[in-house]
């Protein structure tokens, strides 16, 4: 059960992180100085402070912010975010900062000549984005995103401080109840190893499929 929750948090946070990462990367690559500075600020701060602090911030402060945002829209009353939402938001924001850098690097490594060529063929901006930029970016970004995924998976263990019943929390309770901590933390370690091993294999297959159009030397 705990493992299913861990996977759920990790997948949601990773997906949220990719959305944030794409937005962050486009902000970093845009010509607007304000957006550049904002995105730089975000990645520097989030990558520079401990993950645990970010989780504490959202855990203790998240509901307050949600309440005041709701109040600004004329809703009075308290909003309490549940532990799952906070966990996904916190880990997603961390994951998003790393994804931003990976995606930015991948976009920049698409040769500019290809975009020029697409333009010369008369493709619109959206068509270029969809047919040229995104498929190529995905190919360059996959190894980096694989790393981000492993980080995200391991960061979900930190969410156990918010009493969400994911793998680590369940283990902690079981270890306390049975007085066999080594057995239970050892089992948790093995489960995490299984998860990382499976995901490494999946990412390798995704990389092969993303690279199918590339001629090997």
């Amino acid at each position, binding site marked *: 059960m705990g493992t299913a929750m861990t996977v759920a948090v990790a997948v949601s946070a990773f997906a949220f992180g990719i959305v944030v990462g794409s937005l962050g990367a486009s902000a970093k690559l845009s010509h607007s100085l304000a957006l550049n500075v904002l995105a730089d600020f975000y990645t*520097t*701060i989030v*990558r*520079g*402070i*401990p*993950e*645990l*602090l970010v989780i*504490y*911030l959202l855990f*203790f*402060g998240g509901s*307050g912010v949600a309440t005041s945002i709701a109040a600004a829209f004329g809703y009075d009353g308290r909003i309490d975010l549940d532990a799952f939402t906070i966990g996904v938001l916190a880990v997603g924001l961390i994951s998003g900062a790393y994804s931003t850098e990976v995606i930015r690097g991948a976009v920049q490594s698409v040769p500019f000549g290809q975009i020029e060529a697409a333009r010369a063929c008369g493709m619109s901006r959206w068509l270029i984005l969809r047919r040229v930029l995104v498929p190529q970016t995905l190919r360059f970004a996959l190894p980096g995103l694989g790393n981000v995924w492993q980080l995200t998976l*391991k*960061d*979900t*263990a*930190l969410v*156990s*401080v918010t009493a969400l019943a994911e793998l*680590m929390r369940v*283990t*902690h309770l079981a*270890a306390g109840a049975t*007085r*066999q*901590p*080594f*057995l239970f*933390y*050892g089992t*948790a*370690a093995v489960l*995490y*190893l299984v998860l*990382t*091993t499976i995901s490494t294999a999946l990412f390798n297959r995704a990389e092969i499929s993303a690279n199918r159009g590339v001629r090997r030397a």
Partner: protein
Amino acid sequence: MNWQLMWDSLPRMLGGLSLTLQLILGSLALGALVAFAVALLRLSGNRVVETLAAAYVFVFRGTPLLVQIFLVYYGLGQFEFIRDSFLWPFLREPYWCAILALTLNTGAYTSEVLRGAILSVPQGQVEAARACGMSRALAFRRIVLPVAIRQMLPAYGNEVILMVKATSLASTITLMEVTGIARRMIAQTFAVFELFIVAGAIYLVLNFIATRLIKFAEWRLTPYLRARA
């Protein structure tokens, strides 16, 4: 924003700085020794030893650091023979448990960085050293290692930053370093954002100093790149 509270909290937070620094420096120093040994074992050519070293790296890179810390702090005490052994006075203390877990964790990551760097030293340089009559050990010490250490610096810089952040996990096993103090003060005052900003700023400054130090080391070790500029 309560500026007065932020200002007043600074001395107490900085009180945790010494413990944070001890954890960082202690585990990085010990971790470097572990990494050096493991990297050599992984390149030793002995199948059994290589598999063991690879298994160590696989386990410590594949599991969350929090699991490793709990395994050491709560888990080891389960065994009678550890509680009876001479190690118990150390392993009973959360301080040494944190150092041990952080050391083993950074040792695994750093050994991979070092192994990659050693493998990236051009074979021709080793051949040239051997042709000059250097023994294998001498060639390793004078040619391979200096080149490898310079190669690994950028990747090692990332690892140092990760370790600075990882020490915050020591707060989960009752150690009162910067994050631990921040959490306790948040519980007392409910000033989440103010205290978060102060604690976050301390870590940012630490990381900033760490990246500068690594940059400086890189600059010192690449005089040949400077001369041409």
